């Protein structure tokens, strides 16, 4: 009892220091987005969102985020499965390489994509005469997002797969299940938690991606402009009200995703502690 009381008494000081530091760093900027977005009143906010370019940017961002999540869910799970279950020459190196995208500045990613796929790029040079040019098109944006968010799915699924005892699969094999059936009926359900976490993380990162997107999209409004690019463009043009409105929508979306992530994570913890 007394230990609890001393603990509570002495916590006032460190907690207030932390709050004081975090206030200008994290909490106030978060609040600022909403304060500024609603400064012109709800009508102005509504108008800003209804603007055709803003509508396109939001829809395009969501579409790209869904596409990226769907594709990386499959690719990331495949990578996690292969890296976790098979031992082959260079498996460690490959494990590091597939995680590199988190460490590379996104602008650099954009540049390298341009140098590969762009009109004068290594592969782009060959594709250009065929009329195929992914850069400065939605496909380019998708490529950039796939690259940048690749490690999130892998990072969420592989640890779960690593920790899962192989005896579950072996039990299924002896019972007569093929590798694929085992994956579908035994592994995939066991991976559900990792898959959802990975998908939410991928989605959130894709929604907010800026650096690589700005390089490969050409930032063409109504064609390749994602929501973050739209915000930046409006800001540069001095149209702060429009920028803020979309920023608020993006922030709200992110909050929602993180709300689910946190709920999911804490529930997962509760389950495993049982």
């Amino acid at each position, binding site marked *: 009892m007394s230990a609890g009381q001393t603990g509570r008494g002495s916590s006032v000081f460190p907690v207030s220091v932390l709050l004081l530091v975090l206030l200008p760093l994290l909490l106030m900027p978060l609040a600022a987005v909403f304060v500024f977005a609603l400064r012109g009143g709800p009508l102005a906010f509504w108008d800003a969102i209804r603007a055709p370019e803003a509508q396109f940017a939001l829809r395009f961002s969501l579409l790209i985020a869904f596409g990226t999540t769907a594709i990386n869910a499959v690719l990331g799970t495949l990578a996690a499965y292969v890296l976790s279950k098979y031992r082959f020459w260079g498996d460690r190196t490959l494990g590091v390489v597939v995680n590199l995208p988190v460490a590379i500045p996104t602008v650099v990613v954009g540049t390298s994509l341009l140098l590969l796929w762009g009109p004068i790029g290594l592969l782009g040079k060959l594709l250009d005469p065929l009329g195929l040019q992914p850069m400065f098109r939605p496909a380019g944006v998708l490529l950039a997002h796939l690259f940048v968010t690749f490690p999130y799915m892998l990072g969420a699924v592989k640890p779960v797969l690593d920790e899962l005892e192989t005896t579950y699969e072996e039990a299924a094999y*002896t019972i007569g299940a093929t590798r694929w059936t085992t994956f579908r009926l035994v592994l995939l359900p066991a991976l559900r938690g990792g898959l959802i976490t990975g998908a939410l993380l991928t989605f959130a990162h894709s929604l907010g991606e800026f650096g690589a997107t700005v390089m490969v999209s050409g930032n063409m409004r109504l064609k390749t402009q994602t929501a973050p690019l739209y915000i930046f463009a409006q800001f540069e043009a001095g149209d702060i009200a429009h920028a803020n409105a979309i920023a608020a929508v993006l922030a709200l979306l992110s909050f929602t995703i993180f709300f689910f992530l946190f709920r999911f994570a804490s529930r997962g913890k509760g389950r495993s502690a049982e």
Partner: protein
Amino acid sequence: MSIVLDGLTKRFGGRAVVDRVGLEIADGELFVLLGSSGSGKSTVLRMIAGLTSSDGGTIQLMGRDVTNLPPQQRGVGFVFQNYSIFQHMTAAKNIAFGLRIRGVRRGERRRKSEELLDLVGLGGLGDRYAHELSGGQQQRVALARALAYEPHVLLLDEPFGALDVKIRAQLRRSFREIQRRLGVTTILVTHDQEEAFEIADRIGVVERGRLIEVGNAEDLYYRPDSLFTATFVGAGTVFVGRCREGRAEFGPLALPLPPDVPHEEGAPVRVLIRPEQVLLTEEAPTEGLALGQGRVVESSFVGALRRVRLRVPRLPRTRQISPPAPYGEEGLLLEAVLPADRAVPEEAWVSLGGWRILEQPLPTLLVADALNGVAPPMESARPFAAALHGSIVVLGIVQGAEPPEALRDKLKAEFENEVAEIRVRAGLPAEQLRNEQAENFYDLAVLGALGRQAVRSVSLRRFLRESSTPLLFGAPREKFEKILICTAVGEPGKSDVRVGGWLAGRMGASVTLLHVSRDASPAPPWIRSHLDQGVATLSGFDVTAEARVRTAPTALEGILLEARQGDYDLVVIGSHGPRSRSVTARDDVTIQILDSANRPVLVVPEDSG
């Protein structure tokens, strides 16, 4: 035959973890593979299921060769120690999994899983998930799941290992009943001897990848062949004596050698005495085989019985393997049991109510060099190991700060393929060599050329005196055709003649029996008769032997001269044992011969023959 294994082998990194296992299991039989952890028993089971590939041999299930089939096509049911119940499915769905992937219809699946739930005693719990079931219940579900698709054979890998003792006993009984009722051929793997005894029709004992003995519980307990089974299964005492004139000699006791355990003359004989075969009486027994008067040194109450350990006076030429005698133990230690309600006497007469002579062991050679960083003298050991058909145990000794693991890895890298075992001890070389001999029985210890330098003269004397194993010193030699046995050192020994003769017989060498006399007059008759007895003993080993008497100012000079002139390949001398009369190393003939003979020298302790 439901299951036939033939020469089944698995290697990991060049080492055979499963070594040519052959086995036939009849329809409906419950066979238990019993072994300690790391013995390879689980690998055998996994190879039968197809979860681990084999490197040699064949597996037949129900007459069908499945050696190269994937697990899906073998038709086995497998139960794991960790249950491995699919977490996201209910118990009923887990059980029906095998039927589901075989395309059995939903209604039929439900009927079957309910039937199985009843069979394993979980009726009504089909809707529960794994986290809502106890460990024992989960294992019951796992069993039902493995039985649902009616596999040809059932394989269980330590299925009760993760359960509480009470639950374990309960589950064991109901498992045995289910297995009997269904008549499904089963192999169960366990390290628990009690479990094996309780449920098995037959038991196979596995050690270091080899199936060393198969039999029912009573056979393995009362009539084991191997030392491993004798000590791994149940408690008991194991003594080592020698085979002499067709009988097993343990001091004054001469036990008949049964025809099913042949021994060659002079070979070590091991006898197993189970605790309940040790008879304790207040009065000296008038009949039966008395070991002497024993003193109770330990007693523990274990419920129905009381286990006691007795110390009886040492018997000549008898050593103890089990229970391991602590260093410095003067007597022999015997395991015995008393009814729990009988008072524990302080002293009692000990006699044998029964015993089992174990099969003649393959000789084991201890190869060690006591110097840091020096390779063990394998060159010296190889010809002996080959001639004796023996196995080699390498002992590495680390002194000071060097980590034992480093030395173990080094020895492993170099010798793993030709030796049976690698052991590493830390401490003073002489002390560790002595401890190793006290804890394990060796027929011969090969110490090599450097062994002499490693042990300083003062401690060498003590070491030689306390050693219970014949010790071979000296540089390697290509051939061993001529052996010189010196009877002139100290009292005329018998052990040196026996051990030397046994070695000579195995190596096909001829023996010269030497006596050194100090004056030129003819040897007195007692010397002659002693030499004649020696030659007779040697001819018992089928060894060509001659006796020679040499005149020299000292025994040492006589022996060294004879060794040099005859160019013997091996000089055998007796060690004085604890009764040595020499005061310093300088006048110890044994040490002087070691230092100056310039050829391999075998020092035989008095009691080792």
